């Protein structure tokens, strides 16, 4: 355990040496299957990089060019990398979303991600294809900030990833999840929780020193309540946004959220303390017997002292992230130019499977990645219709102030994530507050900003951002199951500007055109792959038809037949009842008497 700790300590000297000028950092990643048993309960195949799992941390400095050369050595699955939280300004095609900004990198294929990082903070990278990343393909990405307001406030930095963990592999789990026999859409429940992709990790700290702890939740599903006994966090960053310092005893980190906190070690070295992560069991449809939803690491002051047993808490009083104030104190974006509602619900379609919907549309991948559609459809690219009904596309004009009003009609929590932007967190309704009603609501002057935000069960959230980043960006729930069941919309931002500024490297087309490309995509035209008659979407991928309402022709025929059968049956009973017995039959009564009485 102590060994793996060194992986997560950052040597500051090195970082400062390379401060002077922007560098190009190259990572050569070969994705391949390796075996791992991070919870000590079950060894399974996981997606490793260069033969290793947990995955290496990507570390860059603000202003750096980051190049990731991805080789897919998985053999049986396509893949991609999404750099979660990075805006990809000017490089929308590097966002890594299969079906939106690229085709999948097929087995044996390679793909180069090449972009400049202009944001500081804590991020993660993960594949963005078919719910693949929970099989292991997710890792931390840290961007150091030479101009961080907190640079002189801490001595060392610690990166702690959180995750849930499944013993089964995603393709099988997804198949069972999206099945007629799972009509309630019950999400598979994780088998374990992890910290730094292990459990019971001992993290050595020096008395009196202050640490910047970066918590990154890389989970597929479960949020974690997180606290360190005997210590208080001072939150300074959420999702790459520096905040004014805020004290918290316990934080709630949803899937894909990040928190950086300052934590000052005690001067007393006699006792060690538990770092507790507890998966939010409210998310689970049912609580399986034997599941340990908690994961513990230790803040170690004295390795020879015993490791504490985590104490129980009665109630989670988590810090309300809506209270945070961004360090840049950016004021509320006033007077949105384009405001729209997204109503979230879960429902079953005609195939009996439970899907997730926004505005009654469940996301289905188009035949042409939406970014390719933007670049190949000329002036029509501003018409959301050409992206296909089931991409649920909204076209945003450049520099508009956008307001999203998301009403959650589902009794579950959902961490919504926007690609390509941070958004201002303007309003969040409490649980069961129902739809957003703008009357009598005072908006904050300086709203919190982040890129992943949790809407409460049957509550609502209102977000604003400026459409200053031309590209194609998804907005989706970051629970991977809900991505699989379609809880995604597409924002096509400044498509005409994109056409003039963006050109896609040949490398990207190679992935689309590979003989073993899967899923198959075309690279031109509307969502149906048509290059002329762009408003004709015939042949585009669409969701299954809705469940039939009430009686269909089949049901009416069956009911009529049943009634007819009953009437005929009754007629037969009556007909028999009024009929007379022939003499011989009268006698048979006596015969029966005879049979019984004769011995």
């Amino acid at each position, binding site marked *: 355990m102590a060994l793996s700790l060194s992986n997560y300590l950052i040597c500051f000297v090195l970082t400062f040496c390379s401060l002077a000028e922007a560098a190009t950092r190259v990572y050569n990643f070969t994705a391949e299957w390796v075996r791992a048993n991070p919870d000590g309960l079950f060894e399974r195949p996981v997606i490793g990089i260069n033969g290793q799992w947990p995955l290496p941390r990507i570390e860059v400095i603000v202003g750096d060019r980051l190049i990731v050369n991805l080789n897919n050595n998985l053999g049986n699955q396509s893949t991609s990398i999404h750099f979660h939280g990075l805006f990809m300004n000017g490089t929308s095609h590097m966002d890594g979303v299969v079906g939106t900004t690229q085709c999948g990198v097929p087995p044996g294929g390679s793909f180069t991600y090449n972009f400049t990082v202009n944001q500081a903070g804590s991020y993660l990278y993960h594949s963005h294809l078919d719910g693949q990343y929970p099989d292991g393909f997710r890792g931390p990405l840290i961007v150091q900030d030479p101009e961080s307001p907190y640079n002189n406030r801490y001595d060392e930095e610690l990166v702690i990833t959180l995750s849930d963990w499944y013993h089964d592999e995603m393709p099988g789990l997804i198949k069972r999840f999206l099945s007629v026999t799972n009509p309630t859409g019950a999400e598979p429940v994780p088998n374990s929780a992890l910290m730094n992709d292990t459990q019971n990790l001992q993290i050595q700290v020096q008395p009196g020193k202050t640490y910047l702890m970066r918590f990154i939740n890389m989970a597929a599903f479960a949020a974690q309540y997180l606290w360190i006994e005997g210590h208080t966090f001072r939150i300074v960053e959420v999702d790459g946004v520096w905040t004014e310092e805020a004290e918290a005893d316990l934080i709630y980190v949803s899937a894909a959220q990040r928190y950086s906190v300052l934590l000052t070690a005690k001067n007393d070295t006699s006792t060690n303390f538990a770092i507790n992560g507890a998966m939010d069991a409210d998310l689970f449809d049912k609580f399986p017997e034997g599941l340990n939803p908690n994961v513990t690491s230790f803040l170690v002051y004295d390795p020879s002292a015993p490791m504490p047993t985590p104490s129980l808490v009665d109630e989670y009083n988590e810090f309300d992230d809506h209270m945070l104030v961004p360090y840049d104190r950016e004021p509320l974006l006033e007077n949105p130019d384009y405001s729209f509602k997204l109503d979230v619900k879960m429902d079953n379609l005609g195939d009996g499977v439970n899907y997730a919907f926004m505005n009654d549309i469940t996301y289905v991948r188009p035949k042409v990645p939406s970014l390719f559609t933007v670049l190949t459809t000329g002036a029509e690219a501003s018409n959301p219709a050409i992206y296909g009904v089931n991409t649920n596309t909204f076209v945003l004009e450049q520099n508009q102030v956008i307001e999203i009003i998301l009403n959650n009609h589902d009794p579950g929590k959902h961490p919504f994530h926007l690609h390509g932007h941070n958004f201002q967190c303007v309003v969040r309704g409490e649980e069961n507050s129902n739809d957003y009603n703008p009357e009598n609501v005072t908006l904050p002057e300086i709203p919190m900003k982040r890129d992943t935000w949790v809407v409460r069960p049957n509550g609502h959230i209102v977000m604003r951002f400026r459409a200053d980043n031309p590209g194609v960006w998804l907005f989706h729930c970051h629970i991977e199951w809900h991505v699989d069941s379609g809880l995604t919309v597409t924002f096509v931002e400044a498509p005409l500007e994109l056409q003039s500024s963006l050109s896609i490297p040949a490398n990207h087309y190679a992935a689309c055109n590979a003989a073993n490309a899967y899923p198959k995509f075309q690279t031109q035209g509307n969502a149906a792959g048509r290059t002329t008659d762009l408003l004709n979407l015939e042949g585009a991928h669409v969701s299954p038809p809705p469940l039939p309402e*009430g*009686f269909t022709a089949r049901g009416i025929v069956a009911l009529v037949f*049943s009634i007819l059968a009953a009437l005929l*049956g*009754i007629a037969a009973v*009556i007909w*028999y009842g009024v009929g007379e017995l022939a003499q011989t039959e009268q006698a048979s*009564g*006596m015969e029966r008497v005879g049979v019984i*009485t004769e011995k």
Partner: protein
Amino acid sequence: MADVFAVPVFFIVFRETLETSLVVSILLAFLRQQIGPDQDAKTYKKLRKQVWLGTGTGLALCIMIGAGIIGAFYGLGRNTWSGSELIWEGVFAIVASLIISVMGAALLRVSKLQAKWRVKLAKALEAKDNKTSTMRSRFKTWCERYAMFILPFITILREGLEAVVFIGGVGLGLKASSIPLAVVCGLIAGALIGYLVYRGGMYAPIRIFLIASTCVLYLVAAGLMSRGVWFLEANTWNVLTGGDAAEGGNGAGTYDIRQSVWHVNCCSPSLNGGGGWGVFNSVFGWQNSATYGSVISYNLYWLAVIVAFVTMRYREQNSHWPLMRLPSRGPQGLPRTQSDSSGGGEIVGKGAGFEEGTKVAVRKVDAS
């Protein structure tokens, strides 16, 4: 209102009582008409006692088992039937359906016998000391002798336990104080209808009453057959989905779309006691979510009923089964008929049962 009277519980008890009391009252009315206190009071009383004994034993047994279930349910906090209750209900429903069907045909047929034969038959069945040769015929005789016990016994056991399971299901969310009055009212309402049917049997023309009540029995039995299949299918679906779909309401996901013939998101006979739809279900086998299995079994049941009655009447008219040339028991049967022909005439004067039918029989006998 909700504190003292749980409407769902009322409907559950009412529908289950209704089904039971229909069966019991039809049997009692049948005995009264066909054997009758004025013909053979002793046999009549014995058979009537059987009916009540079956009802009482069934009731006692289901109260005992029910108390155990409810005790486990509230005491141990777990539904001991969950997982198997649908199988249990399905099998019992099918068995009850078959028993009612056979009994219904038998009652109708016996009613066509001349009163004398009927009474003799009943008396013969009463005699305990007879021993017939084969196991099979002994079993048949046993069934015939105790039919008046078996039918109410099985019916009440099934309906009673179903009521207990259902009440256990909905009762969890109800105040305990709201249950007793609802149960009593349900019992009274169900029994009252049964009693009215019985009384009606005394005033209505005998034959019409008997045919009509047999029709009701067959409607109930057809519904039971369809429900039995439906219960088994619902069990399969619950196993597949790993949950109790029926308790999830009546919307999408509570049924297997692959098996669905029709589904309306309302009118569920099981949700919250089912209300009027529950009564509709227990009398006619209504389902808001019909499956291929439940529809096909319902139709096949009626097909079987039609074929059976047509065949029976054919045999009664022709003294042999359809498609069989020779009367199967002509040599033995005919002489007896001859020898008994004089007895047929005596009954006419007494006027019990079927005057017309008897006259026809007499005429035929005379003609021969």
